[in-house]
């Protein structure tokens, strides 16, 4: 029961967060300089056409009325039309979001797995050369923005060494598997098209790794310090002292309590992957949602900007709830606290 209550509470809070976010992005996108309709139609469009479109999009009405139209549409699942693609924003999202989710999920897995692994090894063998190497990697990883990695990898592994493809999601010769989820790897897996699966993964390596490195460094740092702290805890000494094999103690009794802070940070880092994807997608010419978003902002495509930010907000909220659930699953102190209604 405690878990359901926890989730319920978080969901209710999330509604308020998203509501606030929608007002904020609505205002910000509208106070930016420049006339969106003029930008969409071009400098040579006649004034009456511009006026027509303004009325059609309710841009001639006061802000609160515009917001009312937008919100009532959004609640029905209609996020309006893109000024630029001239399609429903919802359709654009359906096309571009899966590519980004695929990339970000892949990066997230790399980040979590290698971050925890590096941190655990460094913590277990603290103050050895392994630990020092991980520490140097962490410093570099934390301070370097992911677009710098992206450019370096693109040049080194893409152009100089030619180990990895430099752009897009699939090689020209490969037919794209039938669209089910929109994620090429998943679709290829479901339809049994392993050539496409391999090729798609190959294309994802460079962008995903450059995205993941920053978060990976962060996870490694956090995991390292909790592991090396917890190694000195009495409960570890006690477990060993009772004759439980040391490897078993490390893998079970040390790892689980040490993962709690890492998982909390993982949620934040996963959300920032979406943000960093904006530039990385641009560099690798990845036809994704973040690239769509950046174009929308540059062109002042009002509905698209609002939609992109709202979708990111929803993903953020979902990831945070998931993280809270995992942390509650790992840590009975939180779970039992929630049960007591604290």
């Amino acid at each position: 029961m405690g878990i359901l209550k926890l989730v319920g509470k978080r969901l209710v809070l999330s509604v308020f967060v998203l509501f606030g976010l929608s007002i904020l992005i609505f205002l910000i996108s509208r106070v930016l300089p420049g006339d969106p309709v003029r930008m969409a139609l071009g400098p040579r469009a006649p004034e009456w056409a511009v006026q027509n479109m303004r009325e059609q999009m309710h841009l001639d009405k006061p802000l609160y009325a515009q917001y009312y139209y937008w919100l009532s549409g959004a609640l029905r699942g209609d996020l309006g039309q893109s000024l630029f693609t001239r399609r429903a924003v919802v359709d654009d999202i359906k096309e571009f979001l899966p590519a980004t989710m695929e990339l970000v999920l892949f990066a997230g897995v790399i980040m979590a797995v290698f971050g925890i692994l590096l941190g655990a090894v460094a913590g277990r063998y603290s103050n050895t050369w392994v630990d020092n190497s991980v520490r140097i990697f962490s410093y570099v990883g934390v301070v370097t923005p992911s677009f710098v990695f992206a450019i370096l990898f693109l040049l080194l592994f893409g152009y100089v060494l030619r180990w990895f493809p430099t752009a897009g999601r699939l090689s020209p010769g490969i037919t794209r598997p039938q669209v089910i989820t929109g994620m090429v790897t998943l679709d290829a897996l479901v339809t049994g098209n392993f050539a496409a699966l391999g090729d798609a993964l190959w294309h994802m390596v460079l962008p995903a790794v450059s995205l993941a490195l920053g978060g990976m460094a962060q996870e490694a740092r956090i995991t390292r310090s909790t592991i090396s702290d917890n190694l000195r805890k009495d409960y570890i000494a006690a477990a060993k002292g009772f004759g439980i094999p040391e490897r078993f103690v490390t893998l079970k009794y040390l790892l689980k309590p040490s993962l709690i802070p890492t998982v909390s940070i993982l949620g934040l880092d996963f959300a920032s992957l979406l943000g960093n994807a904006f530039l990385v997608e641009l560099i690798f010419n990845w036809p994704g949602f973040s690239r769509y978003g950046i174009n929308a902002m540059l062109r002042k495509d009002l509905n698209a900007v609002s939609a992109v930010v709202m979708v990111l907000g929803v993903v953020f909220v979902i990831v945070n709830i998931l993280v809270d659930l995992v942390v509650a699953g790992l840590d009975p102190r939180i779970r039992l606290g929630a049960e007591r209604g604290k």
Partner: protein
Amino acid sequence: MTGALLHVQGLKVEFKVYEGVLKVLNGVQMVVHEGERMGLVGEAGCGKTTTMKCVLRILPSPPGKITAGQILFHGRDVLKMTFHQVQRVRGRGIAMIFQDPTAALNPVFTIGDQLMSVIKYGSRDSLGAREVRSRAVAVLHEVQLPDPERILTNYPIQLSGGMRQRVCIAMALSTEPELLIADEPTTSLDVTIQDQILRLLNALVERRSTSVIFITHSLGVVREMADRVYVMYAGSIIESAAKEELFSNPLHPYTQGLMRAVPKLTGGGIAEGIPGRIPDYLNPPAGCRFQPRCPHAWARCVNEVPTLHEVGQGHEVACFRFQEQ
């Protein structure tokens, strides 16, 4: 010495810290015979727990490092054993109850999970899952915890401090160890529960005739729990004797000071403390480490380190006042 269950000889331990090297243990000597209940007394920070962690080879390292000495258990040196051999000493040979049960229990696993792991890996014989479980229930029952089945599903935070220490005692006894180390098992508990836990522990070890090392800083507790007493100061044993002998005839100035520091019910007035503080391990005093606080110190105490000398029937003391020459 023959028949010794545990024989610690010349144990030295250093801790590497940022400021330098702490010489924490300075040649600890002690013997525990089979069936003996030994009391180990000393101020906080004198190295009692560190010594015991060395015995089980669970001293966190780094920062701790054993630089010299032997720890013979049944005549075999624990410090020279392979990992596999040490593992067979732990649990079934020697088990330890820690000072703070809250720190000694893993917060994110149930009592059942932890206790059953101890029974599964620590016991002499390999047991099936059902036997492990029934033994866990039995041992929780033995430490007088109500509703053992429910306790197995509880997490440490769902239990009170006293219950947690009972769980720790249950863990330590579940593997039927030959030697039980009880490291100030009542220090972190409410005064009202301390007595209950001591009685329980006493009854349990008596029933099993387990050998015990009982660590404490309270002479009152030693009087109740031990046959033989070792007094430790700043990383070495400075006096050892049978309990009656030690209480009636304490020789080392530090032991005498400890005796005077016990508040008496009769007589009134505040108990005397020992002036001064436990020395700095980074730069320990030359010679006898007690010398800066000792009312009887003379030149020799600064120039030489005293070693344990037998001065009477089983009574040893490390002080130049009781040595010829």
